């Protein structure tokens, strides 16, 4: 974990996160924007792998990158013509948004550096096996998550139905 390779990998991943995030919100082609989002999500999945949460990284890739981004792409293809460019933003608005984001970054970064930087020395962590994760997900005891799991599943069901109802063509 603390080899030079890890460090290089880290820099690549961090760089990718930042670059693709910026590109995702600045490009004027909406389909590219979705693509950059996909890359940013992949980079995040890489962070999860680096931190040792292989299952989470897999979910991230499968659900987020695989599912949600595909949804985005579909909707983009449904709602815009190929070659459509977003209209250039009013520079005043862009400047304001940029200043807001910078200000936020500065304040939060200062808070992180000042207050959270003591969290060093990554502790050892035994590997989370699928067995453990499965038990935690399906158990009802302490630190076990059956109830949220069920709630989420109901929510998803509702979303499926709702999505169909909202988006379908009216018969008449």
């Amino acid at each position, binding site marked *: 974990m603390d080899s030079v390779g890890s460090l290089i990998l880290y820099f690549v991943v961090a760089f990718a996160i930042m670059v693709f995030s910026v590109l995702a919100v600045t490009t004027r082609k909406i389909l590219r924007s979705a693509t950059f989002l996909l890359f*940013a999500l992949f980079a995040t999945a890489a962070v999860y792998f680096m931190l040792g949460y292989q299952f989470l990284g897999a979910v991230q890739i499968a659900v*987020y990158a695989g599912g949600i981004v595909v949804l*985005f792409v579909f909707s983009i293809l449904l709602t815009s013509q190929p070659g459509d460019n*977003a209209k250039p*933003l009013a520079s005043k608005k862009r400047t304001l948004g940029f200043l807001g984001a910078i200000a936020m970054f500065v304040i939060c970064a200062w808070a992180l550096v000042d207050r959270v930087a003591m969290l060093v020395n*990554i502790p050892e962590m035994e590997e989370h096996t699928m067995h453990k994760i499965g038990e935690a*997900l399906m158990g009802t005891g302490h*630190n076990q998550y059956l109830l949220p799991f069920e709630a989420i599943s109901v929510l998803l069901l509702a979303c499926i139905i709702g999505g169909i109802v909202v988006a379908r063509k009216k018969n008449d």
Partner: protein
Amino acid sequence: MNFEFEWNSIMFLIPSLFMFCCGVYGFLTRRNMIAILISLELMLNAVDMNFVVFNRFLYPGQLDGMFFTLFAIAIAAAETAIAIAIIINAFRISRDIDVKDLSKMKF
């Protein structure tokens, strides 16, 4: 070459913060609804990452942060599905998905 260094949580939190700020910027400035939604996903993803990082650094023996992220991903999926359904519907009505133009239902 013996290269020693300590992993610091800052190293993960700063990219995450940067991602979040990009999301904020996008959310504030974009006009295409899908682009806004993409910005939203960026912010959500940044938050997910924070959960995982803090879980890893503070309580490596437990899975709370991980499960939060897991559920957040599921909810993000649900939310995206609904949002996109609405966007498609709005597009069908007005042939446009610019948020400025979607004020018909306001008054």
